[in-house]
């Protein structure tokens, strides 16, 4: 009875508010305390403000790269064709003054996005696994360098 009186007052001024409180009244049935309604409004407000507020994503540039084959390589002996046989086609070949370098590369990117009403934050991190083989002019392996950092890519905030 008391609710009817109040809703009549608001009906003329703000029909939207009326429908909102009417909905809450229906949900909580008659006799619900004001505290329950307040809690419900706060919860609904939080839900509506935080809807779709977070995103996580991951992307990969994949290349099969089995580093266990590195144990079989010997500088001064292994040839370029043996490296190609073990690791497949390189991502990039660089011509150097005294030979060539084969670069094998793959990457992992992780993205995080958060939207908070008027604020939005995004963070994207990309890390690589990379192996570089140096060959002399006779296509014999002279050096190689390995960086396996793709696993270090992480989700996070931009600050």
């Amino acid at each position, binding site marked *: 009875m008391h609710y009817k009186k109040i809703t009549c007052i608001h009906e003329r001024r703000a029909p939207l508010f009326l429908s909102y409180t009417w909905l809450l009244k229906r949900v909580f049935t008659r006799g619900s305390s004001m505290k329950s309604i307040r809690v419900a*409004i706060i919860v609904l407000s939080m839900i509506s403000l935080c809807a779709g507020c977070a995103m996580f994503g991951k992307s990969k540039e994949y290349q099969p790269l089995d580093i266990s084959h590195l144990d079989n390589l010997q500088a001064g002996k292994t040839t370029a064709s043996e490296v190609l046989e073990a690791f497949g086609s390189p991502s990039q070949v660089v011509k*150097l003054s005294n030979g060539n370098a084969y670069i094998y590369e793959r990457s992992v990117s992780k993205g995080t996005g958060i939207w908070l009403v008027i604020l939005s934050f995004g*963070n994207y991190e990309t890390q690589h696994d990379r192996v570089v083989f140096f060959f002399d002019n006779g296509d014999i392996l002279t050096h190689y*360098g390995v*960086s396996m950092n793709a696993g270090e890519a992480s989700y996070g905030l931009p*600050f």
Partner: protein
Amino acid sequence: MDCRFKAPLALIICWMIGTLVPGCISYELVRQVKGLEVRAPNGELKAGETTLGEVLSLYGAPDKLTEIGGRELLIYERAIYTNSQISVGIPLSDIFRMSAEISAYGRLGRYDTLALFFTPDGILQHLVYEKGSDYPYLKALLGEEGDMHEE
């Protein structure tokens, strides 16, 4: 008006403002990082002494590799891009077929770089190290060109 719904009404108004305001004001901050932090060469790399093999075992595979004038150049690099944008607008398109909006953005790329030049024999000739990520974001973005090098 003595109304028991005063508190819920205030909450509803807050909720409506929170729902409507995102179309008017927004702030965005996006950071993109490529690569791990580049370790500073603390005396472990010496021009004329350090070999290519030693550098590869210390630093791993380089991020970039090229040949310049008969010398090999290895670059280890971490790139940090920061983009921030603020927009303030009044959405009037439903009423006047036009909207007023003003926005400002700043995009900054900073690089930590270790560049190593080698002779054709694979001996380190000279090196350059620069830690761009130490520059403060706003100072680097808003400062005049060359300000950072004057410090």
